[in-house]
């Protein structure tokens, strides 16, 4: 019961943030970039609900636009990871043998690198842009999909309905993609929500380190990094973007946990 209520809260947070991210370009794109040096580092007030930053830009507007950036990166990265990781892991699990071994060792090698380090190396090598940022985040997410879907396929592929499909003259591809996959989607769906949280965090970290979006983009990580020097005189400049990151990640994690409970993993044991 408690879990369900928490999951509902998570869903609520995710929906609100998604809506804000969608609306941000209309609500905030003007205020987010308008500088006002006379009004720097001002605390929350009537004109600026969350105060202003070092250049006197409205923090609330920047956070809204930051949500939009974070969601775009997360959506692209997770989609790419899904599109690459799921078929790869599925085929590996279904075919088994040498292909399976090769793919899984490759994934193991990928996992052996610390994810953040790999992303930093990737961005440092190819330069910062939206696409490289997404690629860096996606590379971190691919192993998860590959392994989860492979495990699910392995569990399904010896079931009799698969054999029945084979005896019905269906091809291997058809059996894998239209018979087995629909039965494997639940754990992947949970992973997608959790990966959104990871992706947002990773994007923020990279931006914080100066490897994400260049200023003046209102990325949450970048905002934190810009606020670093003023923590003592104007803590709100760092607190609000930090809160935005935490809240978003909390929302996705609660939703993911809730989904996992709904698709009780015990139902797959049989």
């Amino acid at each position, binding site marked *: 019961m408690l879990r369900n209520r928490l999951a509902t809260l998570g869903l609520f947070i995710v929906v609100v943030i998604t809506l804000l991210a969608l609306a941000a370009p209309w609500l905030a794109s003007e205020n987010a970039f308008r500088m006002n040096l006379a009004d720097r580092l001002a605390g929350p007030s009537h004109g600026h609900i969350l105060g202003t930053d070092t250049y006197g830009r409205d923090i609330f507007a920047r956070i809204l636009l930051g949500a939009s950036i974070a969601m775009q990166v997360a959506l692209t990265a997770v989609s790419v990871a899904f599109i690459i990781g799921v078929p790869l892991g599925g085929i590996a699990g279904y075919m088994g043998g040498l292909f399976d071994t090769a793919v899984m060792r490759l994934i193991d090698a990928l996992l052996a690198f610390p994810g953040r380090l790999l992303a930093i190396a990737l961005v440092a090598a190819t330069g910062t842009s939206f696409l490289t940022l997404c690629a860096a985040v996606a590379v971190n997410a691919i192993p998860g999909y590959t392994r989860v879907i492979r495990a699910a396929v392995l569990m399904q592929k010896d079931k009799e*309905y698969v054999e*029945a*499909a084979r*005896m019905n003259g269906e*091809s291997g591809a058809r059996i894998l993609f239209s*018979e087995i996959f*629909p*039965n494997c989607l639940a754990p992947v769906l949970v992973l997608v929500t959790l990966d959104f949280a990871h992706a947002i965090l990773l994007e923020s970290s990279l931006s914080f380190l100066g490897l994400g979006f260049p200023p003046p983009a209102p990325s949450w990580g970048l905002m934190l990094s810009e606020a670093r020097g003023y923590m003592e005189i104007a803590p709100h400049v760092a607190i609000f973007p930090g809160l935005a990151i935490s809240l978003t990640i909390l929302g996705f994690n609660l939703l993911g946990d809730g989904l996992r409970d709904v698709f009780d993993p015990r139902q797959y044991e049989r």
Partner: protein
Amino acid sequence: MFSIPGNMKGEMEAPLLDIQNLRVELLLRRGILTAVDDVSFRLREKESLGIVGETGCGKSMIALSIMGLVPSPPGRASGRILFEGVDLIRKKERELRRIRGREIAIIFQEPLTALNPAFIIGEQVAECYRVHFGHSKRTAREGAEHILDLVRVPSPKQVMKLYPHELSGGMRQRVMIAIALACQPKLLIADEPTTALDVTVQAQILELLEELREKMKLAMIFISHNLGVVAHLCDRIAVMYAGALVEVTDVESLLQPLHPYTLGLLDAMPLPEHRDEYLKALPGNICDLIYPPSGCKFHPRCFKAQEICAQERPGLEMKPLDHAVACFFPVYHEPS
């Protein structure tokens, strides 16, 4: 040296299925397991053959090899499986796929696990039409409705919208039969189709199978360990022991079995008249298939075994009319 068991009358007419010296070996770490050992039989169109034997005697392996689905590795099938004159063992996977489900269909033992839990019944029945005839969604759905009606699923329109777990066992088996018959195959293989069902439902399903076989002019291979069911449903019966055929006969003459093993099976059947007696079980266990006994594989358990049985292997030979048996000392008296 293979003989042609059964039916001399049908000799002229080309058989639908002609299995010659089929051998299925599984290469295991412990050694080579001979799951099907030199099996030959023929099946004419519209004929139904029952294959009986203990668990693990290779019944299902025969079915798998006809479908070209012996898992390989570790499996290896050799011999010839002529279906309408074409050897299935030498066919390519792609060609086999066109035969599976289209020409030869199979019904499984456990209908719940054989249906995909993620799809509604309608989609699964329609699938065959889409795979084999490339029908559009709508025509496939109409075909599905028709075939479900044919297997007497009540109100097929509603049932098509249900998921497999929402149906009863008998209903699921009807759906399985519908899927198998959807493409009007020439040969139906039923692999213990009623084992998982209640006795009353079992009777209904058997009746349905018999009726459909008549209506659709199907040839059928019915695999079971239930002699009663097979005797009821089939024209001919093949008895298997440890991967080999030991006796092939018409249903009528099965009650006078020639092979001691068949006799043992018949004696082991519980009958209402003998309800106060102990069941007569065959002594011993089924033999090791990797290192089978020398000579006749049944000799260690056979009450008629003599020296020659341990040395030479009896071939399947015609005894009196239409009755083939692989035994040096066939039994010539009524079972007690």
